């Protein structure tokens, strides 16, 4: 049996298919390796090695992805999705950096993990008991002398998810050897809040109950840092609104002077109490009265034990923002205001940086960066922001800073800013170094925009073919004569293009051949983004629609038509946008929710049909003047998993219902793409007879799942007839069941558990549909050019041939490559979430007619059929992503390019990846191996050779004649 596997690999090696050429990798593809929007409390500069001075930028995004970014160029050094894969609405996550030990400790869900700061490898991890979630993570400040060479210990607070669990505060050894001590608190209810803080000697455990019995006091339990024994307990008066990091009462824990800080909504004073005092007293800090309603207050402090005990309050008013700097008196436990930073109308972001014995505060606004010392209000440095894109309203939402003092009065500031628009950028002394488009990680819907406007040459050609031949010919001659005007400049450019074949010019030449494809993306953050899908994913425009989208609504469908993008929202509203620049043209409010949208032909324009959650379609209000054509059927899937067919004309009528068995629900449905051209309607067999393909645009594949059973229905959508069914048992619940349909075949994948061996295997099933099992037979309809689905002889079921292959890892989504005329063979594109890759499986391998248990006959071999092997190895050569790690891809889109051989691929979900593939090799374009210079040189050399040999040849002829 082993030989078969080897043979199958050898056979696949012989196939002339490659996903990509080695010299095309990194040239025709692009990849935005994203983290998601960085969280303010889990983002910092940190030196991964004590020996070097270079620091890296670490963050945990709100999609729970931990990553390290090189601050020099913004490239991603490593990343680790803490939840296994990027998640939306991730629960709170924590990140602390070990001091001097090159480690980064993250806390998310139930896992505390320690990562090597330099390469992102997991050093150790620790799981908190079941039923609890990590709700606080703190590095214990290094105290004493003997701890210098040991990794810092970590303090973890796990709060209960339900009433049976306890809150546990534990100190974990920094070398991963487990807990040093634990403090259990069974009194904490899941609804109360708890937080921790640590000073060099003590650990403070702060709880406050919420709800009806809420008191205005927080309970502070002081524990001994080394033993975990309770050293004291007190209660401190706090206000309702905690102001600390991540909405906690306590803050500044990493600085050695942890304090509680809170305020009442809208009040102009802040309650402050220093925890290191044995009896914390509450100090009220009165904020400067600017005659302003205060909307929000945030605290900024330096995270350094040796740094002075200063902190900054950033106050956001209705119209202006300012900051107040306070100095803490550690002895008395009080805090006094040192100075005020002026209020500006521009939105600001503040960052506090501790550097040795001083603390710097950086204020970043839309237009400038100002550096202050915590001691006094004098500006240490001020830089205008330059080279920013001139887009108004892009103000930084939060920022972290790194301040380097160069001599006495000279400073350098690096700011990592997260802007409102989702960009994460680094500003060095006011100058923009790089920008990472982190908002692309939130894209959940996409549509291809139309190609750029009609080509002038194509228009001329159309004109010539429409008039009579003579006029057309005259027009053509005239056109060529006018073209001659540009001949001199063209001739001048020829040597240059031959000599200079820079990669840049190659890329431009390729772009001209492939054409331009723009993709319009809609994100969960209510933004529309347009990317150039053929040109390295370059940004075209970005529009924030959040002012047009009511809260709770989301984008459901984007339809691009005549240069306009129609965005349909889940509340039924419609936003029309200029597809070339992203300007909002029109906004129509909604008339009832919609779960889906379909467009059917109508007069004079296509009619949009909205589908409600129960599967009922109704014509959209914006196309009230449009009458859908009669005789069309719309297929909808309701939320409870039934399929409906509706005849849509003047009225809407239900024609059929497909209700799966009890407990079974249709979870997914696929049909052929709108643009799915078929070059040949039959498959030529080895003996040159034809197996006719069953080609119908009206077939759909419905995937129904019960608890562990999977049923696939192939239906004729007009009549509702079930053409083919297949059932699979023992499906692993919760796994993806992607499917794709094209031409006369469909493929789907599922993960099942073998009942005998308990082994889990992922299978990829391919099924091909033919008119008849007999070659040269077109079925009862024969060679008729059209047919009605309701005619007597139209109801013949297709002949289905299917084969299943076991693949080494699960597939989360499937797609198929598309070309303009369908001549090129297709590739099945599959997302592999386990290896973070996209693989293009050639249809030659994934063929349902491969002979089983025997070698192919001569005629089958002529067809290119190989012997069937149950194992389908995913050849690394077929990985479209080659060396790139593409994380969290949810959908792959394919679109034809101007070249028949090439299909444009775009994938999104978390990372954004795009490439161009040629499944039948690039048969219509010269490869990179073609050397223009060599060709020109050869021609020149031949010409020179002929010239040189001419006198010789003439002499020989003459002499030969004389010799006769």
């Amino acid at each position: 049996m082993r030989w078969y596997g080897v043979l199958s690999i050898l056979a696949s090696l012989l196939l002339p298919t490659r996903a990509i050429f080695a010299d095309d990798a990194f040239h025709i593809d692009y990849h935005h390796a994203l983290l998601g929007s960085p969280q303010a409390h889990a983002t910092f500069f940190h030196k991964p090695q004590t020996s070097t001075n270079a620091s890296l930028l670490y963050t945990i995004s709100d999609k729970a992805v931990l990553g390290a970014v090189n601050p020099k160029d913004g490239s991603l050094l490593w990343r680790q999705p803490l939840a296994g894969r990027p998640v939306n609405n991730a629960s709170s996550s924590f990140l602390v950096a070990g001091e001097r030990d090159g480690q980064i400790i993250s806390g998310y869900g139930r896992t505390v993990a320690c990562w090597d700061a330099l390469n992102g490898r997991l050093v150790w991890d620790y799981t908190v008991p079941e039923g609890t979630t990590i709700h606080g993570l703190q590095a214990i400040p290094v105290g004493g002398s003997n701890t210098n060479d040991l990794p810092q210990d970590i303090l973890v607070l796990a709060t209960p998810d339900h009433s049976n669990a306890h809150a546990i505060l534990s100190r974990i050894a920094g070398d991963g050897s487990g807990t040093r001590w634990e403090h259990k608190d069974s009194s904490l209810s899941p609804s109360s809040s708890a937080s921790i803080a640590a000073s060099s000697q003590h650990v403070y455990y702060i709880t406050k109950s919420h709800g009806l019995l809420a008191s205005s006091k927080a309970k502070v339990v002081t524990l001994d840092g080394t033993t975990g024994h309770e050293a004291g307990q007190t209660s401190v008066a706090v206000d309702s609104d905690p102001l600390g990091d991540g909405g906690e009462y306590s803050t500044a824990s990493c600085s050695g002077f942890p304090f509680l800080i809170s305020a009442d909504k809208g009040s102009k004073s802040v309650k402050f109490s220093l925890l290191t005092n044995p009896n914390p007293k509450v100090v009220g800090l009165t904020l400067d009265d600017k005659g302003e309603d205060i909307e929000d207050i945030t605290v900024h402090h330096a995270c350094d034990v040796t740094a002075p005990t200063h902190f900054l309050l950033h106050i956001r008013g209705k119209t202006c923002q300012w900051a107040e700097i306070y100095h803490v008196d550690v002895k008395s436990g009080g805090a006094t205001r040192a100075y005020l930073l002026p209020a500006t109308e521009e939105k600001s972001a503040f960052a506090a940086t501790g550097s040795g014995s001083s603390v710097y505060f950086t204020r970043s606004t839309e237009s400038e960066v100002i550096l202050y010392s915590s001691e006094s209000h004098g500006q240490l440095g001020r830089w205008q922001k330059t080279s920013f894109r001139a887009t108004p309203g892009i103000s930084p939402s939060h920022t972290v800073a790194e301040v380097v003092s160069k001599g006495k009065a000279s400073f350098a500031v690096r700011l990592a800013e997260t802007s409102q628009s989702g960009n994460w950028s680094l500003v060095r002394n006011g100058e923009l170094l790089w920008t990472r488009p982190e908002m692309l990680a939130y894209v959940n819907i996409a549509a291809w925009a139309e190609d750029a406007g009609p080509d002038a040459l194509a228009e001329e050609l159309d004109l010539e073919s429409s008039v009579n031949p003579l006029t057309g010919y005259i027009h053509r001659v005239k056109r060529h004569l006018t073209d001659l005007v540009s001949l001199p400049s063209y001739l001048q450019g020829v040597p240059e293009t031959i000599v200079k074949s820079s990669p840049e010019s190659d890329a431009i030449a390729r772009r001209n051949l492939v054409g331009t494809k723009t993709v319009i993306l809609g994100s969960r953050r209510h933004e529309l983004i347009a990317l150039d899908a053929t040109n390295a994913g370059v940004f075209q425009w970005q529009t924030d629609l959040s002012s047009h989208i009511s809260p709770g609504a989301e984008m459901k469908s984007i339809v691009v038509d005549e240069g306009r993008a129609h965005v349909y929202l889940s509340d039924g509203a419609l936003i029309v946008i200029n597809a070339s620049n992203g300007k909002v043209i029109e906004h129509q409010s909604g008339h009832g929710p919609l779960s889906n949208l379909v467009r059917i032909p109508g007069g004079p324009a296509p009619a949009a049909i909205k589908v409600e959650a129960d599967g009922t379609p109704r014509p959209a209000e914006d196309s009230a003047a449009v009458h859908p054509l009669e005789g069309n059927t719309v297929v909808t899937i309701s939320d409870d998993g039934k399929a409906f067919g509706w005849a849509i004309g003047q009225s809407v009528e239900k024609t059929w219902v497909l209700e799966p068995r009890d407990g079974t629900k249709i979870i997914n449905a696929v049909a052929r793409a709108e643009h799915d051209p078929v070059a040949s309607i039959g498959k030529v067999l080895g003996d040159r007879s034809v197996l006719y393909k069953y080609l119908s645009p009206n077939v759909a594949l419905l995937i129904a799942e019960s608890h562990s059973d999977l049923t696939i229905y192939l239906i004729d959508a007009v009549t509702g007839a079930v053409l083919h069914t297949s059932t699979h048992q023992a499906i692993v619940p919760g796994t993806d069941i992607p499917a794709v349909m094209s031409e006369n075949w469909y493929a789907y994948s599922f993960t099942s558990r073998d009942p005998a061996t308990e082994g889990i295997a992922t299978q990829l099933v391919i099924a091909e549909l033919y008119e008849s099992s007999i070659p040269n037979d077109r079925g009862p309809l024969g060679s008729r050019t059209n047919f009605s689905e309701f005619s007597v002889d139209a109801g013949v079921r297709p002949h289905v041939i299917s084969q299943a292959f076991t693949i080494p890892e699960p597939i989360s989504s499937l797609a198929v490559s598309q070309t303009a005329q369908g001549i090129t063979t297709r590739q099945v594109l599959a997302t592999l979430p386990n290896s973070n890759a996209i693989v293009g499986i050639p249809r030659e391998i994934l063929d349902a007619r491969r002979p089983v248990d025997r070698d192919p006959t001569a005629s089958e071999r002529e067809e290119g059929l190989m012997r069937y092997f149950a194992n389908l190895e995913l050849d690394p050569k077929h990985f479209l992503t080659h060396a790139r790690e593409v994380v969290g891809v949810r959908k792959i889109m394919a679109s034809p390019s101007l070249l028949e051989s090439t299909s444009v691929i775009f994938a999104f979900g978390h990372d954004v990846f795009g490439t161009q593939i040629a499944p039948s090799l690039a048969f219509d374009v010269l490869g990179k191996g073609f050397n223009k210079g060599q060709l020109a040189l050869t021609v020149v050399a031949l010409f020179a050779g002929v010239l040189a040999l001419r006198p010789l040849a003439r002499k020989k002829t003459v002499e030969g004649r004389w010799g006769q």
Partner: protein
Amino acid sequence: MVAPQPKWVLELNSGLPAKSKHATSIPDPPGLSASKPMTGKQAKKSQAAGRKIPTTEETETLKLKKAWEVALAPAKQLPMQAIMGYMSGNSLQIFSIMMVFMLFKNPIQAISQTNLAFSRFESPGTRSQMLGIKAVYVLMQCLLLGLGIYKVNSMGLLPTTRSDWLAWETERQPLERAYFAFGQ
């Protein structure tokens, strides 16, 4: 008046001269049929038999025979061509393509030059039978042509199968269309 015949004519007509006495012991060179000097009546008689001028009928029979040989010559080529065809294989290579080209070129050329090939044997007496012979000749060339066609067919160059006409068959269009609201 008849001019006196030259000497060499007389010598030729009188046959070999009588051998001298002492020359009789020398054997004749091998292959010399007239080992003995022919003399008198016997010599005269045998000379008359060897030089007899064939009659027109005889020449015509001979011509017909020759014509038949020419007409049937292509048939003799047939087995050789078949073997060559078999040996060259059915793949499209320069050798097999050239061979097929010759298989077509030669018979067609020969058929177009039928009259030329038989002009040597043309005479008023044979004309009636010649037509049949020419017909056989053309038939034989057609056999060769048939071999060529068979060869082309076995090379797969003749549009004889369904797949050769597949490009002219079109997809059936359904009168009703379904549209799917399966989401993006």
